[in-house]
């Protein structure tokens, strides 16, 4: 997998061409949708009521679109103005569609009636049914420099496929640790944040979870599908309850959260229980297994490859690479 993060700053990578490509790729739309759905599930919002949510690294609004479908109101920030322009285009399209619907409102009055009788309604707003909320507001901002909001603004925060950008410094001034801890005080007490990211290596995953622990938030990393190179996803799940100490507090997410903070060697651990089962849902996909202590051959090869890309001295790959060593006494 190529790493756009190594090419420089996100605002340069996500230029107009790249932003349009990203937003119009149906594969991308599908992946981002699935991840966002999972992030919302992990947020465990109170009784599914419409919440005020911050989307950090919102891009062209693919993740925001899913929030809207769940009836949430969101504010997004992103460092790439071209991605935000795509998000603006999406808002414009949505408005045009809404206006089109307004003209033919009589046609679907039957459906409205049915909706009202539907016991599956997520919330009873004035119109009844699960209304899609209006598009989110956008801000041009670099999350590495702290968020421009007063304390306790949001009910929750999501960040989908963006956090890994903070693990790299493009200039002397950009210190990953500082950038990772810069954005932390903007959530309502008891709020959750779910940040899905692509760590390049387990070091990055450790760096990210340590930064979270440093600013005093409880939580840990949930790894979905750890044995699949393609489907594997890391979610940093945080609770912004500063007083939070013991594991009992996390009743909703038993087993799906790490509270120990740093663990011996790994730092990243896989949820003991299938969080979907914990949430009372049928589990989809392969069962998640605990990640073994050893590093796999694939992992080592990948790691060496990226080290080489960074211009670091790395030993040649041989048939011995990643091979199990005989036990010694």
């Amino acid at each position: 997998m190529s790493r756009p993060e190594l090419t420089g700053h996100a605002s340069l990578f996500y230029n107009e061409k790249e932003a349009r490509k990203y937003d119009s790729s149906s594969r991308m739309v599908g992946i981002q949708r699935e991840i966002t759905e999972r992030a919302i599930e992990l947020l465990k919002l109170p009784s599914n009521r419409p919440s005020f949510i911050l989307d950090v690294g919102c891009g062209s609004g693919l993740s925001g679109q899913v929030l809207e479908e769940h009836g949430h109101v969101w504010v997004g920030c992103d460092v790439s103005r071209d991605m935000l322009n795509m998000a603006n285009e999406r808002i414009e399209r949505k408005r045009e569609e809404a206006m089109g619907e307004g003209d033919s409102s009589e046609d679907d009055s039957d459906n409205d009636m049915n909706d009202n009788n539907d016991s599956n309604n997520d919330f009873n707003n004035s119109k009844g049914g699960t209304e899609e909320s209006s598009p989110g507001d956008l801000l041009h901002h670099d999350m590495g420099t702290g968020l421009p909001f007063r304390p306790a603004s949001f009910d929750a925060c999501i960040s989908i496929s963006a956090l890994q950008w903070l693990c790299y410094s493009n200039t002397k001034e950009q210190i990953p640790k500082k950038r990772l801890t810069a954005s932390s005080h903007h959530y309502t007490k008891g709020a959750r944040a779910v940040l899905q990211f692509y760590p390049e290596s387990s070091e990055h995953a450790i760096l990210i979870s340590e930064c979270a622990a440093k600013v005093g938030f409880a939580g840990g990393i949930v790894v979905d599908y750890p044995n699949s190179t393609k489907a594997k996803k890391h979610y940093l799940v945080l609770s912004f309850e500063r007083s939070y100490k013991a594991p009992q507090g996390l009743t909703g997410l038993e087993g799906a959260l790490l509270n120990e903070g740093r663990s011996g060697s790994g730092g990243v651990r896989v949820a003991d229980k299938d969080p979907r089962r914990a949430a009372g849902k049928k589990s989809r996909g392969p069962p998640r297994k605990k990640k073994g202590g050893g590093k796999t051959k694939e992992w080592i090869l990948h790691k060496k490859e990226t080290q080489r890309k960074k211009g670091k001295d790395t030993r040649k790959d041989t048939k011995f690479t990643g091979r199990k060593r005989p036990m010694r006494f």
Partner: protein
Amino acid sequence: MRLLTHNFLQSNVRGTEKGYPLNIEVTTIKYEESPVDKEFLLNLLPKVNYNALVAAVKQMSPHCEQPLPELPETMDVSNAEQNQNLDDATISNLHKVLFDVYLVEGWLICPDTGRKFPVKECIPNMILHEDEI
């Protein structure tokens, strides 16, 4: 940008004490009606800084074609239970000012440092220069 977002936005330029609320300098605004979500509004209201909202409405209102709804000069919105008793007209007015009026082009100005953040096509640019971080 809606006044909803403005109500939570704060300048974090180096040297700011509070950086809140940001003053609004309007070049263009737009008004677009949207359905009221009462449940969301009641959930949000205790977090709204009411004085900042009233001040923002005053800065936007002169630039609107139809005047924005008049809000009471002071109101205590911090108590969620008490807010349940708000009448529908007040709810609808609060919704209008929070959701339906947008700053399209203009500036947001940090009250402490005077730093001006440009707003273009509804998107405020809050990116800090290196010496402001």
